[in-house]
């Protein structure tokens, strides 16, 4: 068939001979680990672009009036920043990189259920990304609608909406394919003896995520398609001048995009649930509670989309139903936090970089989540909606949650993925800069929001000046942190000391039993499971 790969025992998947040469051996490989790394490299590249756009916004906001760009540029930049960060970075992020790489290994399988489909999903991702980014270059200029593409502004603007929307549509398919693959993999390819309640928590969260991916993504797909239809044929689905209802657009958009935030956070919670027991040398506290809360978040999270529309003019009934459900969905997250902290009780904690990331995840996730409560209550939401407070909330929980988990994951699994080690002291220094910079950057935005500064504001009145300066300075500290971290990881992957120990942290899940880096098919013999995944006795 298409992909002849030669395997000798104990040859790392990176060195396996393939009938393709050079880069083609990667971009045509169906090996789940290579696909995972392809995703890693593409996602990190887009992340750097997104981050630079973020830094540019912060520079602009450092002082009132024009600082470095004009309003059109600012509007385009926050749109691109949002689209890149959401659709290209955090939604695929953890599942596509670490899910692809580790899901099969953690459940004791040789690959995912549909390896070719897996490779296809990466290709679809790349095509979608290119289509979306082509909006930058085609005439009309980059889109300026915000990542929410709200109607009717999104048909009125003269900028290149179509490529951006079509790109997002294509990216949706990539996400769906990954979801289908993971569900089937978990159902069919678990090693003998691995019952559902012996499944490690990262695969569990991927399972919940995958369901949201396949059940929510189509809704945004069709919605974006309707925008395309609207722009091309003037159908009038959401155009009030033709009888359409702009609020209906918001419903459809958030029916996907709210569950999407749980697509982002669930795998992050999974990563944290892996790191914490390993570094605590102790079984996770309340395994079943964490599993159940994962499924509860996935399910209830499907019905709270309206909390993004509290001021849009929905009916009162809808308002309080959504507010109520929003509060319900916060509870499983609370349960998880308590269980993670509970795991540390009477533990024996190794203080290493991955653990610092996990512990600081708890802190920033709490800030993000607890600020979500103020957004979920009706009276307070009315004041805070569409202000800098919301921006602070979601950077804390998206960037704080998913970003910190991503950093934790990469520092945790690094020796397994590359077979080498980074410099641990530098890693901790990078974390300190990042953590301080992060909080300096986003905490002031809470105060700006409470004071009434709306979001998506290119310019602001003088009284918002102070916190904005602090925030901009924070972004520089974070720049320092990110540079330290990236340089350290890249150097580690290239020149770091080769790890001889398969299990440097003392983890109990299956990935620590295979070679570092793993061989083409991970296991010479499929293991038989006879214990819980976190059995530290």
């Amino acid at each position, binding site marked *: 068939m298409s992909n002849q790969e030669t395997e000798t025992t104990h040859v790392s998947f990176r060195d396996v001979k393939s009938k393709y040469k050079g880069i083609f051996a990667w971009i045509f490989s169906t090996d789940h680990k290579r696909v995972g790394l392809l995703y890693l490299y593409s996602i990190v590249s887009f992340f750097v672009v997104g981050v630079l756009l973020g830094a540019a916004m912060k520079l602009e906001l450092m002082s009132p009036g024009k600082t470095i760009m004009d309003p059109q540029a600012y509007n385009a930049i926050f749109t691109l920043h949002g689209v890149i960060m959401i659709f290209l970075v955090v939604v695929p992020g953890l599942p596509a990189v670490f899910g692809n790489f580790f899901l099969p290994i953690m459940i004791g399988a040789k690959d995912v259920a549909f390896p070719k489909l897996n490779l296809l999903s990466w290709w679809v991702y790349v095509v979608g990304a290119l289509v979306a980014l082509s909006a930058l270059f085609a005439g009309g200029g980059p889109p300026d609608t915000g990542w929410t593409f709200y109607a009717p502004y999104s048909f009125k603007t003269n900028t290149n909406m179509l490529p951006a929307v079509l790109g997002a549509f294509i990216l949706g398919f990539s996400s769906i394919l990954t979801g289908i693959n993971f569900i089937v993999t978990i159902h069919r390819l678990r090693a003998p003896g691995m019952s559902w309640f012996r499944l490690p928590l990262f695969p569990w969260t991927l399972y919940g995520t995958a369901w949201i991916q396949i059940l929510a993504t189509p809704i945004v797909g069709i919605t974006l398609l309707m925008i395309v239809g609207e722009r091309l044929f003037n159908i009038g689905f959401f155009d009030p001048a033709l009888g359409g209802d702009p609020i209906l657009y918001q*419903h459809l958009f958030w029916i996907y995009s709210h569950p999407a935030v749980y697509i982002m956070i669930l795998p992050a919670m999974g990563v944290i649930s892996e790191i914490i027991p390993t570094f605590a040398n102790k079984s996770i506290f309340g395994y079943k509670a964490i599993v159940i809360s994962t499924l509860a978040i996935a399910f209830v999270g*499907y019905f709270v989309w309206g909390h993004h529309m509290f001021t849009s003019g*929905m009916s009162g009934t*809808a308002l309080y139903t959504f507010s109520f459900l929003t509060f319900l969905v916060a509870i499983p997250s609370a349960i998880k936090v308590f269980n993670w902290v509970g795991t540390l009780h009477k533990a024996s904690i190794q203080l290493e970089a991955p653990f610092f990331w996990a512990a600081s995840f708890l802190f920033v996730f709490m800030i993000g989540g607890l600020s979500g409560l103020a957004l979920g209550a009706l009276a307070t939401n009315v004041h805070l909606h569409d202000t800098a407070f919301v921006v602070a909330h979601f950077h804390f929980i998206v960037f704080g949650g998913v970003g910190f988990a991503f950093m934790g994951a990469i520092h945790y699994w690094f020796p397994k993925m590359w077979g080498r080690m980074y410099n641990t002291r530098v890693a901790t220094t990078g974390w300190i800069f990042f953590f301080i910079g992060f909080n300096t950057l986003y905490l002031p935005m809470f105060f700006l929001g409470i004071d009434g500064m709306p979001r998506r504001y290119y310019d602001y009145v003088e009284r918002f000046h102070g916190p904005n300066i602090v925030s901009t300075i924070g972004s520089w500290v974070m720049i320092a942190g990110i540079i330290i971290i990236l340089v350290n990881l890249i150097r580690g992957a290239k020149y770091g000391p080769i790890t001889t120990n398969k299990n440097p942290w003392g983890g109990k899940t299956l990935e620590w039993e295979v070679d570092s880096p793993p061989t083409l098919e991970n296991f010479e013999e499929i293991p038989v499971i006879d214990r819980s995944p976190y059995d530290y006795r």
Partner: protein
Amino acid sequence: MENNNESHIVPYKTYGIILSVLIVLTLISVAVTRIELASLTVFVAILLAAVKSSFVLIYFMHLKFDNKLLKALVAAVFILIALVMVVTFLDYNYR
């Protein structure tokens, strides 16, 4: 992993019967909507469509012979769709 594709060979006749039922239901729904039942029309038409689609799901799509898990999942997806509609209408119905 078991390959249970041999297990249930559905006879042609079953499909024939189901097909005739479906066609009859289609004709009934056309006939029913011809008479004025006011707001009931919508209800009856949707109900008949739901019945028809269950036949398609159960027989043509083999759910009858599939394992419980799959049956439950299919049911769950339809329930999900229904719930999403209900929640959306919490807005429109009470505006």
